[in-house]
Each structure stands twice: as C-alpha cells, then as structure tokens.
C-alpha cells in the first residue's frame, strides 16, 4: 500500500511530524490541492498507531461556537466523499447521534446548541423521549431510576467510520503523489536560526527544511519544547473499550454527559464505548480496571440486558487538552513552524478539515480562515473559543 523509502533525503520543502490521520491528510492535500510533493512525513511508530487508531470514531458537527460549527461541518462534508476520493472503503456509516439530557439544565443546553446549529445550517434538533424510544427501544429511559432521560439533542448526520482506513487512504493518496512516509523515524530536535526553522534532526539523520508541521496528538509539548514555544496544552489519558461482537441492535450513536458514556455499534457488531478523561496528567497508554468498572456500571444503567456481555479489549490514548476545549492550529511565533495540536478528545472527526486547512496554511504561510479562531495567540489576546459546553462528555 505504501512505498518504504530507504533513507531520508538531505532536504525537503515541507516536513510533517506525525503519520496519523491529521499529518497524512495535510500531506495529501498539500500534494493534491497545492502541488507541493517534496514532503517527508516522519513517524516514530507506525502509520495511524497513535490516537487515529485509538479513538471511538464518532463524526459530528453539532458544536456550540460558530467557529466550531463551521469548522466541523466542513469536515462532515469532506468525510461524506472520502471513500470515493480515496477509492478505498472507509466504512463511513451515517447513524444519527443522540446527546441525552438527564436534567433540566442539560435540556436547556441542548436547546441552545440546537438553535446555534440550525442558525448555521447544521441538521440538529431537540427531541423528546418518544423519538428516543423509537430510535432505541432497547434502552431503559429511566436509567435505573436515578438519571431519567428527559430529552436529547438529535444530530441526523452523526456517523462512524473505520479509523485505520482513514490513515491508510490519506497515506496511500499522498504516497502516490510523491510524498515520502518514513515510519520508525523519530524527531530528536528542530533547528531554529534567527526565529526561523532551518532543519530537523531525526533518528535517521539530519534534514534541511524551512517548513515543519507538528501533528503529533498527545506528544505536542515534547515537540514545542524543541522550538522553545510554550502552550497551554496538558496531557491526560483517555480510555476506551469494546464488547464482544453481537448481532446489530444499536443503530444510533448515544452519548450521555451525566452518565459519562458514549457508545455505538461497529460494523463488526462490537459495542465501542468511551467515558471521560483520566483524572490526572500521565504520558502513558496504560489501561485501568477502574475505567472498565465505572463505564460498565453506567452502561448497565442504560442497557440492563447487557449484564452477561463481556468486554473484549480496552486501551488508551494520550489527549492534548486545552483550557477552552478547542484545538490550537496555524502559525506560531517561530517562522516556518506550524501547529496542528490541542486535539484533546475531539480530533478524529476533524481529520479531513484539519488536513485541508493546515495544507493551505503551510502552502500560503497564512492561517486558513476556518482556523483563525483556533490560533495559538488567542490566549495572549484573551479571546478564547469556549467549546466546553459542546464536549459530549463532561471532560
């Protein structure tokens, strides 16, 4: 599926750090939209082995801020054509997405989100228990009696996709257009002279370049330290798990903020489940029993009949958290160093649009208009893009 170039060249027009969905999408659109093919993508592990392969694959655009809605809605549009664009089936499956409200205040927030979404042209509405019951007759709407569901925000375009295929599709498309993907190649340092990027030091030798894009999910602070940039990003693990496969019974994607659950049923029949962030900083992808116990407990509030179903696998990824729950994208104080970071728990759904806008930003050395609200300097300007209300689960 990919060439495996034997050695690095002495120089490239653009170096991208991280061969996950975001880095490969940026490489793909640099080549496809901007004709820039002298690009090396450096990956210390393997393609899509980081958070691209560790998320729960939910795609939606029912965010809260106008900046967020416009950005994620463009992403959903790109997602819908991706299988054709790649000539590779990414199993994109539109399911409908319910964000359940268990309290009056949650209902009020859902109504607010629905109105923001509708105003911006996104298919989103507040629904009552009747609609929820029709879409998901297996659920106990009283949630064990202690967290009865009062309504939900319904987002018809909500979807899931095969996450590995997304990385492979972007990687193959970039590779065929001349981009070099170097796996098992770790970045050890970045040379900066007079405030400009001049090169990258790797475990396989030095490269001269004037443009570096950092797209490394939970490892961002290690890279920004190399160029002397401070950011608000801090790292917490985010865990997930899947059940054994079952016959299809759960069509929509369900999210409950109060119960800290999000769940969908994959094409293989496994329930893919996640909860909230681990409670303290850690740079590790270890799993814990506390997580499985807590999540299973809340799953059983919603679906008591699952009590005999076993959990097959659990894993974790490292999430780049930001204070306003929006990403950090675009130019930085170091000329030629671009950030695609701060993707916390919301990065997978943004893969196509982040690739598209970062490719534009790198090619023109100017932030794309869709990402202006996500610039690093927003903190110094006290102009945060508060997305907290739209996070699915109370992070």
């Amino acid at each position, binding site marked *: 599926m990919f060439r495996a170039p034997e050695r690095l060249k002495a120089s490239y027009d653009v170096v991208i750090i991280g061969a996950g969905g975001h880095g490969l999408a940026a490489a793909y659109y640099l080549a496809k939209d901007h004709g820039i093919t002298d690009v090396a993508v450096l990956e210390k592990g393997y393609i899509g082995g980081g958070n691209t392969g560790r998320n729960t694959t939910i795609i939606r655009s029912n965010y809260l801020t106008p900046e967020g809605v416009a950005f994620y809605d463009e992403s959903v549009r790109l997602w819908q054509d991706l299988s054709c664009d790649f000539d590779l089936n990414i199993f994109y499956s539109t399911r409908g997405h319910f964000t359940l409200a268990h309290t009056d205040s949650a209902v009020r927030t859902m109504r607010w989100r629905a109105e923001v979404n509708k105003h911006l042209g996104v298919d989103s509405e507040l629904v009552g228990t009747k609609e929820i019951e029709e879409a998901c007759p297996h659920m106990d709407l009283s949630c064990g009696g202690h967290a009865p569901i009062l309504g939900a925000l319904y987002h018809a375009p909500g979807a899931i996709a095969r996450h590995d295929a997304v990385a492979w599709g972007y990687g193959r498309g970039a590779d065929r257009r001349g981009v070099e993907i170097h796996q098992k190649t770790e970045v050890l340092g970045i040379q900066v002279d007079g405030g400009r990027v001049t090169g990258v030091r790797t475990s396989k030798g030095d490269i001269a370049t004037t443009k570096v894009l950092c797209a490394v999910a939970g490892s*961002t602070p290690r890279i920004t330290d190399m160029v002397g940039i401070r950011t608000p990003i801090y790292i917490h693990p985010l865990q997930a798990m899947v059940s054994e496969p079952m016959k299809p019974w759960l069509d929509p994607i369900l999210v409950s903020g109060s119960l800290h659950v999000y769940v969908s049923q994959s094409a293989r029949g496994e329930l893919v489940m996640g909860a909230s962030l681990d409670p303290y*900083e*850690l740079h590790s992808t270890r799993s814990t029993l506390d997580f499985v116990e807590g999540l299973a407990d809340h799953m059983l509030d919603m679906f008591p009949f699952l009590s005999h179903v076993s959990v097959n696998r659990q894993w974790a990824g490292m999430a780049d958290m930001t204070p306003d729950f929006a990403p950090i994208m675009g130019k930085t104080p170091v000329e030629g160093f671009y950030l695609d970071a701060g993707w916390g728990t919301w990065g997978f759904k943004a893969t196509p649009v982040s690739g598209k806008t970062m490719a534009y930003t790198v090619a023109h050395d100017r932030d794309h208009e869709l990402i202006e609200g996500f610039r690093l300097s927003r903190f110094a300007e*006290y102009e945060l893009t508060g997305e907290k209300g739209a996070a699915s689960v109370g992070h």
Partner: protein
Amino acid sequence: MKLLRCPINGPRPVSEFQYAGEIRTMPDPDACSDSEWTNYVFNRNGAPGIKKEWWLHLASGIWFVVERDTSTDDVQRTYLFGEEPA
C-alpha cells in the same frame, strides 16, 4: 498507580484523592508584564518529567505535595507543603 501515600493518613486508594495540577508560582500581578501574566494564567509545562503537584485527600481535606514522574506514574515522595524532606 493504585495507592497514594497521604502524609497524614498513610497509603490510601487513589480514588480517594483529587489531582490539582503542577505547583506554580504566581507572579506579582501589579509588577509583571502582560506576557508574564498570560504565561502564568494559560501556559503549562506539558512535557513528561518529574513534577511537583498539588493533591487533595478528599476524605480528610488534606492538601499535600506529590513528586511524580508523569511518564511512568512512579511517585517519588509525598509531603506536606513547606515540609519537604532534605
């Protein structure tokens, strides 16, 4: 990490504790520049390493300091603020 040693109550399950972030020194808001203040308010030392952190034992309300390696989750030592062992 499954157990954490509270300096007063001894080793307790980690679920009894609340993490409250790395210990940082606030600059004098009347004397520092805008960029120093922004740096204090928003920026964090996000890279892995041995850090000094605030933790709270929820059951007894005791705040204390934990020195922990954030890449391995190994706790080096815990003590009350201002009572750092030599």
